[in-house]
């Protein structure tokens, strides 16, 4: 859907999931809008558009952000990572595999956000406790699973790193 306003467009260049991507944007477009509408990155979902639900979380320069609260223009020349960027040719990451084995997926609408945040947590190369992970993912809402299996999936992969 077309979101843009009436100001002149600017050219946005980013490294999206490892590839340089360029598109025309307007100042009032958010990173969320541009990812979904211009780059067809559909794993990034929205549910509130005001930073409460966290469903639109992506990694911006390797740090998690809620993409509805980031203007697309702010991401000029930045790197952006979404679930599309961590899956290739049927080869799942350990975390994706853990999500499946633990039953951490139900409707799937929040799954991309939890996976990308989990991916970030695991990339910290730091050992976290159950309650630390519980706190780290508190910014994303899931209405189906009750969170337990999501926490356990991240914890399992995190613990494996230190075995």
């Amino acid at each position, binding site marked *: 859907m077309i979101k843009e306003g009436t100001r002149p467009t600017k050219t946005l260049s980013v490294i999206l999931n490892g590839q340089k991507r360029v598109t025309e944007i307007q100042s009032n477009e958010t990173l969320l809008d541009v990812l979904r509408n211009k780059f067809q990155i559909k794993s990034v979902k929205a549910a509130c558009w005001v930073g409460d639900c966290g469903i639109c979380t992506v990694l911006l320069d390797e740090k998690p952000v809620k993409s509805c609260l980031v203007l697309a223009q702010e991401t000029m020349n930045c790197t952006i990572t979404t679930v599309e960027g961590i899956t290739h040719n049927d080869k*799942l990451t350990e975390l994706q595999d853990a999500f499946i084995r633990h039953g951490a997926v139900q*409707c*799937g609408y929040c799954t991309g956000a939890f996976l990308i945040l989990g991916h970030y947590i695991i990339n910290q190369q730091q050992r976290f406790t159950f309650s630390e992970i519980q706190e780290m993912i508190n910014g994303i809402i899931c209405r189906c699973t*009750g969170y337990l299996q999501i926490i356990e999936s991240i914890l399992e992969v995190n613990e494996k790193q230190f075995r």
Partner: protein
Amino acid sequence: MNNYVGKSVARKDAKEKVSGLAEYAVDIDYIPNLLSGKFLTSPIAHARIVSIDTTEAEKIPGVVAIVTGKDWPVKIGLYAGDRDILAVEKVVWIGQPVVALAAESEIIAEKALSLIKVEYQSLEPIFDPKKAMESKDILVHEKMVEYNHSPAFNPIPGTNIANHFKLRKGDIEDGFNKADEIFENEFSMPQVSHAYLEPIVSIGHYRKDGSIEVWSSAQSPFTVRYLLGITFATPTSNITVHSPFLGGGFGGKAGLNFEPLAVLLSRKARNRPVKLMLTREENFRSAPIRVGMVASIKTGVTKQGKITAQQIKYIWDSGACADYAVNVGRAAGYVSIGPYDIENIKSDSYTVYTNKPYATAFRGFGHLELHWVIERQNEIITKKLGIDPVAFRKLNTLKPGTGITGNQHRLREDAGSIDECLDKVWIDLSPKKDKIKSFDPWIFRGIGIAGFMKGPAQPPNSASSAYVKFNEDGSALVSVGTSEMGQGTLTSLAQIAADELGLPFEKIKIRGDRDTDRDAYTWQTVGSRSLFMDGNAVKNACINAKEQIFETVSQVLRVPKSDLTIKNELVFPRGEPWKHLSLSEVVMGYMYPSGESIGGPVIGHGTYMAKMTILDANTGAGNPAIFETFGAQGVEIELNALTGEITILKLVSAFDIGKVINPQLCEGQVIGGSVMALSIATSEKLQYSDKGDLLNPSFVDYIISRSGDIPKEFITHFVENPQEDGPHGARGIGELTMIGVPAALGNAISDAIGVEIFDLPITSEKIWSEIQKQKPTLISNLKQKMMEGI
């Protein structure tokens, strides 16, 4: 022989979902010439529409179509046609769509909407369901009698009562006379939001040839199709409804919602497709929600704990429309006394209109609410009588062969056992109870339990169907009508099919998206009905496919059909596996060495019809449901009496679901459902101003549970008393996982500090204010202790 049934195989859609490939209605933007739809809503709770001026909006370049209620003044709805597509004569709640438009972009649509002028003449609104029930002069729907109603419902003309359901048994006065003690209380629960994460999205395409195509976040695409046909006076065969993966539904996407508006916009927009996507705020204000409830209950009980009489009045606050909620009142009406066998019953369940957002189905469908009433009341009774809570319940629970829901229909002998569930939960809760003492004197521990039952609330002719279509390599596609909204039923159906057909699980395909043209019919994806209904249909379709396969193989192998079996993709006579044909040799027709061929491509079909009866209008007697799942839930809590804050230490659940088809999926339902129920029990409430304006239409003001809020421990038990006519003996579970939680929590609070809570949600503030009312000196004593440093 079961290779898959009973095992925790991974969800069929898991890979799609973890790779970000699963498509939801919100993702569909590739339809050519797609326009953005947006609607303007009523700012007044009750008013006559004087005029609508769209002149300025029409001048905005990029505005393609503007529609008002008068463009298509047809009332829509499932069981009662009481809802305008856009308000026609008057508005009945704040948030009701009044004018809609389709434009080239969202920003144009928003700009144009701001220029529309609507003039209203205010009418007196009514918000309190108790007052609404008595009111004769303030009516939300003056023309209610003219609406189409499904015959199972009983609206009372000249009132706000959209449905009155009666349950009667024995002689209520006689029952009270036999009682040693009588308990009278009132309980309530507010309207709450489903808060499914994917907002409602409907794309409508009214094509030039008059055919209609819809893509919608709809739980019940076949119902949407059927009702669209009525709305637009066109044959069902003219309509296609696609429902992709749903980002949660929980009942909120079960009825007909914004599909007619999207189609109407497309019709006006010279047949260009139009996408309506609600913002979260619009979803809170304009989309359907859960009913509110107020209940008064009077129970007669003997000293020994036998309930002799139960008299109840439920008032269901359905908001401005009740097209689906009349059935919430009906379902809660026939189960109104809970899972108990009581001689004398008088129960009235009223679904009532108010000038608030309208209600629809929601996981638990009246049962979460009614068990809040029944199981809190039981706690109060057991405390007064000094009887063990589980012993008291077991003295009164339904047993196989006793009269179900009081209405003289015998409960099946294989219906399952609530007593076993109660025992399992209680054992995990009670032994530890007295052992742990807290350091701080203001921290109190308590345990609480609640038993419950629920079956699918569906019409007696509710049907399911399935087909199984084989591919060249012997793999198969299973088609059903059930939608995938997270619950995972499709995976369980694939497990059933794999075992029935002797195929590896990977060789069964079952799509996550629904298409009413392609898929087998099912009535709706609601009421925990799908596994049972569609499961039987799938099983029957597989049997039918096997019949076709055996027909061919029996000719080839020259053995009777009845001797044949399938295992590991091979068809052979029982006991002679060496004498086999592979499925791939048969399922597209068998070719003899000569080239002569027999049989043909195999498509098996199967159906399942609900076996129920219409309930008697005066007593409620009859068979209301295809099964009842029984269960019990309990919690152990820590309560800070100074702040009212509670910590859930443990949540224990037990359900008699007959057969666990997929343990992991079942457990996922239990954890997810009980966390959702805790969220509702402890914080959720739609709050309105005195003008009926919703005050908390966002996730910052309307709090739902996050990862930091979950119980410290979950314990789940499944009891497996199989039901003969269920697939592998199974009964449904999805909704059951919520039902006992609020009452168990209320009971645990009572156990911890002797304070009784009657109204949900049980917020910290609520507990604090009830402690002040019921134990006026407790908090000041504790404050003192706090300073003494004990």
